[in-house]
Every structure is written in structure tokens, then in C-alpha cells.
């Protein structure tokens, strides 16, 4: 009887395997009739399926940028969707890319958690007919059609060092960086540029003593700030070039005895930073407008899918209320210079 049970189990195992193989074996070559006919130059096709895939859902920054994209998609009459993982693990985005490809999305607009790990999946999606636009954080250039750059690393590094230098004052002193994850492509590029910027003679009195990682988690960023201040008693300033990090650091500083003594700047959103700018914890911070970034990415995506641009240098396209943009080197479109928020202008912004 025991042998009988065993046989039944093995048979069932075989059945499951056969089922999986059978379904998969049916057809590889069946291409859908979704191939895009060349659109007449200058017009956006209607009904384009444009999907935003942020690094992580439930992240306020991406909610804002994706909503910018949503507004643009509504303007040109496309179909908008947003999907994504709830954690920022390197490979977490892969299954969402696969899903979007199977859903026959026309353009996947993605901010990459890892510039390599999602490459294979993106290329498979492109082979299946999707266009890929990256925004906020790029992949390897060979895995996408276009990258919408929020600001150059140089522009960001310049404004961050300028703001912390102004806040700390002429005497200078020790500064530290509170970053997102240790592997974030854009964060590391900015940090490198900040180091270059600090080498300039006008910043000779600023000394970068530490870089810590809050993983874009509020609590971890909060405790990392706490640890940073305990470790470096002479710290004069913190730069946190991430919206989650700068808000958490501001919250810690504003409730501690360091408030006003240790300066803070970074990349933040006005709504998260308003209270801390008003109570003096943070004199000024910078950011591009994330809603504009998503808006531009959506227009670029639609222009790409409609055949208006192909991604080569010099291609021009219209991005609704933002006007005309030109594709630059390496199939990159630049949004513009970062904007500085301070007590005098912060109330004009709501995002």
C-alpha cells in the first residue's frame, strides 16, 4: 500500500510538470498584430498604453512624478497605468517589467533600482514590441530607448555644495552625506561629483567626513542621522540628496539640541520640508519638479511610440506645457537646472 501511495504521488508530480511544459510548448512564434505602423510625423497616436514603473510604490516622490505622467497621458489621450514593487531590491522590478510586456504596454517608463539587473527583462520587453523610457535613475544605455534626466549630476552636486556652504558659513567645518541605498546609481554619481566640487578652492574649509545610507526608509534614515551626530561631534552640516533622507534628518534635527547648530540641505519636496524650513532646521534645499519630470517622460514616451522621435541626438519633440525639448547625447533628454526652495518661496509650491 505504501508503494501505491508513492506511485500516485509521482504520477501527480509528472502531471504537474507535463502541464507546465505543455502550456509553454504551444507556440513561441505567434507575434501579435500590435506592430506600430509609421505614424504621420508630428502627431501623437491615440490610445497609447503608457505604464509608469517607479523604483517603489508608496514612495511620495514617485507618486508625484507618476501623477505628472498621468496628467500628460490624459492630455494626449493615452491609457495610463502605474505598477511596481513595494521594496527597492535590485531585482524586484523584473517581474513587473515582464508583466507589463505581457500586457502589451506600448511604453514602459521606468526608474531603475539597478542599472544592470533589469536589463535582460527590458530588452526582452523591447523585443516583444515595447519602447522603454527611463527617468530619474537610468539603466545601461543599451537597455532603453531614451533617458529623461532630471538634472545633470554636476548641476545637482554644484547646488548641494553651494547650499551647504552658505548654510554652514565662511568658517566651514565637517560635513557628512546621508544617502539612499548604497547601490543607487544616481546617488553614487552625485556623491562622486560632490567630492569633485569640494575640491574647488572656495570650498577648501568644508571637509566631508562620512557617507551613511538610510536606504530610503524613513526610520533607518532617522537613526542613521542620530548615529552620524553621535559619531562626529564637530559635524557642521548634513547633505541628504534624497527626499526620504532629508525629511527624516530634518525631523531628527528639529527635535534635538542640534537644531540650528548642524545645518541641513538636500533634495526634498516642499510639502515634506515646509515645517522644517519655517522652524529654521533647514535654510534651503533643492529639487527639480518631480511632477514635471513625469510629465516630460510621458510626452517623450508618446513621441517615441508615435515615431516622432527615434532617440537620436538632435531629435525634437513637444512636451505640452513645458514646451519643446531636444534629445541630447546618449539618447538623453534633460529636464533643466535644479530649483532652490527657501523660506521666501516655499509657500508657492504644493507637491
Amino acid at each position, binding site marked *: 500500500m505504501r508503494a501505491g501511495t508513492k506511485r*500516485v504521488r509521482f504520477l501527480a*508530480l509528472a502531471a504537474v*510538470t507535463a502541464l507546465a511544459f505543455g502550456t509553454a510548448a504551444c507556440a513561441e512564434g505567434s507575434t501579435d498584430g500590435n506592430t506600430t505602423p509609421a505614424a504621420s510625423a508630428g502627431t501623437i497616436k491615440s490610445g497609447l498604453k503608457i505604464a509608469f514603473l517607479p523604483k517603489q510604490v508608496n514612495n511620495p516622490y514617485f507618486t508625484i512624478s507618476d501623477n505628472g505622467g498621468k496628467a500628460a497621458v490624459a492630455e494626449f489621450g493615452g491609457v495610463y497605468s502605474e505598477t511596481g514593487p513595494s521594496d527597492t531590491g535590485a531585482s524586484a522590478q523584473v517581474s513587473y517589467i*515582464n508583466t507589463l510586456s505581457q500586457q502589451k504596454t506600448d511604453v514602459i517608463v521606468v526608474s531603475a533600482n539597478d542599472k544592470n539587473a533589469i536589463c535582460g527583462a527590458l530588452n526582452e520587453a523591447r523585443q*516583444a514590441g515595447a519602447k522603454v523610457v527611463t527617468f530619474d535613475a537610468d539603466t545601461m544605455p543599451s537597455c532603453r530607448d531614451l533617458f529623461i534626466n532630471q538634472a545633470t549630476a554636476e548641476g545637482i552636486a554644484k547646488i548641494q555644495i553651494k547650499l551647504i556652504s552658505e548654510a554652514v558659513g565662511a568658517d566651514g567645518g565637517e560635513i557628512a552625506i546621508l544617502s539612499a541605498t*548604497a*547601490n543607487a546609481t544616481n546617488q553614487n554619481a552625485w556623491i562622486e561629483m560632490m567630492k569633485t566640487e569640494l575640491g574647488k578652492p572656495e570650498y577648501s574649509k568644508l571637509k566631508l567626513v562620512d557617507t551613511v545610507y538610510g536606504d530610503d526608509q524613513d526610520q533607518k534614515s532617522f537613526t542613521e542621522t542620530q548615529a552620524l551626530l553621535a559619531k562626529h561631534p564637530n559635524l557642521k552640516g548634513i547633505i541628504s540628496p534624497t527626499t526620504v533622507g532629508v525629511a527624516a534628518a530634518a525631523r531628527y534635527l528639529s527635535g534635538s539640541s542640534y537644531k540650528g547648530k548642524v545645518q541641513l540641505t538636500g533634495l526634498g519636496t516642499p510639502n515634506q520640508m515646509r515645517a522644517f524650513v519655517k522652524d529654521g532646521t533647514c535654510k534651503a534645499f533643492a529639487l527639480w519638479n518631480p511632477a514635471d519630470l513625469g510629465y516630460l517622460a510621458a510626452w517623450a514616451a508618446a513621441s517615441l511610440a508615435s515615431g516622432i522621435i527615434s532617440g537620436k541626438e538632435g531629435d525634437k519633440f513637444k512636451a505640452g506645457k513645458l514646451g519643446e525639448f531636444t534629445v541630447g547625447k546618449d539618447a538623453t533628454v534633460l529636464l533643466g537646472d535644479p530649483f532652490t526652495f527657501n523660506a521666501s518661496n516655499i509657500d508657492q509650491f504644493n507637491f
Partner: protein
Amino acid sequence: MARLRAVGSWDAVVVIALVAVSIIGALAIEGVGDPRFWRFVTLEAIPIALIALPMTLIVITGEIDLSVASVLGLTCTVMGQLWVSGVTSLPLLIAISLLLGAALGAVNGLFITGFGLPSLAVTIGTLALYRGLAYVVLGDRAVANYPPEWTTAAIKPIPGTTIAWMILVVAALAVLFGLVLHATPIGRGLYAMGNNAEAAHFAGVKVGLTKFWLFVASGVMSALAGLFWTLRFASARADNGIGLELAVVAAVLLGGVSIFGGRGALLGVFAAVALLGVMRNGLQLAYVPANTLTVITGSLLIASVVGPNVVGVLRERLRSRRRRRRSTAPTVTPTT
């Protein structure tokens, strides 16, 4: 009789659920019937299935290994570091990685069997320790410049299908583990020590030694999953596979293996790995948001712990009723 028992068991429930979900999914959700869907489901399931094999055996003995995802991560980073430092022979990299996995598993096994510490505590410790070491090895760097031949070879489909050939390796290993568990004295020993380690010991089962080798096997399989992971994503990073141990344990428990040991079968675990993969990918295709998916997976895990127990209680009741009925009839006393 045999058929009746199989139908009543939890593995059968999971297999039926898998078939039902696949069919309903294929009918209701556009894309589930597509061969590419199965390619993606299997690609995702391969590392989970690899680790679930030894995990099933370990949980049957009443132990657990939570360090598996960290072993995977550490293997990825060591392999990446070796590649960067000039080890360019793939067979050598594979050999070193598997040996490393064995060593990491042996450390777990030594603490658990040598010092008699609870596996839960030891492997929570090594979960943190091995992950920490992974960050020591690669820090914030990612190694991604593997030869494209390697990375495409890892996910190459079986000719004529869309399924990655690695599934054949998984299948072969599954047969091996299945034979050991269900057809050898070692396998019977695993169930025995899961039910009562002391009794098993007195019955001549080498409890400590067997458990030690199970943890070594777990390390090796996690390392193998790490190799696959590195090549599939073309990216060795310290955070590779973070949290994967939960996916593995969820599949093992949903597959009907008792968390208290002594009960479970490999078929149910395999069906559970597939079921979780099909459900997750299918629901994703049906535009179910990530947050809802997490809630559903959590609920399934709870159901998987409660489910087999309910089924077990029902079967026990059925059996005792039958026994009572039989005992009223004239009985033949069995002689042993």
C-alpha cells in the same frame, strides 16, 4: 485505498489548487495562457524551488534554516569578487561557490547539532552574519560585467519551449531529494526524528549527523540558487535575494510540511512553489497592485499553517470513526 489517501492529503489539495488556478487564470486573465507567462513564472520559481528542496527535509525533521537567502547573497558577492579579481573559469567559479555554500551550511549544522542550539536562533544569527559578510565583500559595488554567453546560457530556453533549461536541473534534483525522502531509510529517519527525536535516536537513527548534512545540503543548494541568480540578473550585489527565505518557507508550509516536523511531502512543496508563482504573476497581470499582493501572500501563508492542521484533524476524526465502526465487528488481532 491508496487513491483515497492521496486525495485526502494536503499535497493533493495543493496540486488541485494549482491546476484550478492555472486553468481559471488562463481563462480569465489575458496573458496567462501565453507561453511567455510560464517562462517568467519558472524563471522566478527556480531559485525558490532549489532552496525549497533541502528546506522541506529540514522542516520535516522539525528544524528550520532561515539563513538561506543570506547564503545566496554571500555566494553572489564572493563569486562577483573572484570574477573581478581574475578568476575567469566558470567551472572553477561554480565549484568554489558550491564549496562556500557547503561551508556556510556546515557552520549552521555545527552550531545546531554540535552545541545543541535551536536552529531558529542559530540561523537567524547567520542570516544577519552572512548578509553582513556579503556587504563586507562587495560593499556598495555591483559586479555586472559577466560574459553575455554566461548570462544568456543561464536562462536559455529548452529547445522548442520557452521554459529555461535550469528547470531540468531542478527536476533532476527534485527526483534525487524525492527518492531520499520517500524511498530510503534516511527519509524514514527524517520523519521519525521530526515526530520524536529521542525515540528516533533510540531506534538507531543518527539524528545529529543527519541534521548536520541536511544543513550542508541547504548551504549548497542556496549557493546554487545564488549562481543562477547572479547570472540571471547579470548582477552580483550584496542585497541579492534579500527576503527570499520567506518565499521559500511560505512555499514549504503551503506545501503541507508541518512546521512542527514529522509530516510533509516534496510533491506538495513543488506544487506550492508553482501555485505561489502562478498566483503572483497572474494577479499582477490582472492589474492587482503590489500592496494587495502582499496581503494575499500573507493570508495564504496563514491558511497554509491552519489548512493542513484542519485537514489532519478531519482525517483523524474520520479514521477514528471508521476504527470504532470496525471494532464493533469481530476483530482479528494482528501478530507482530
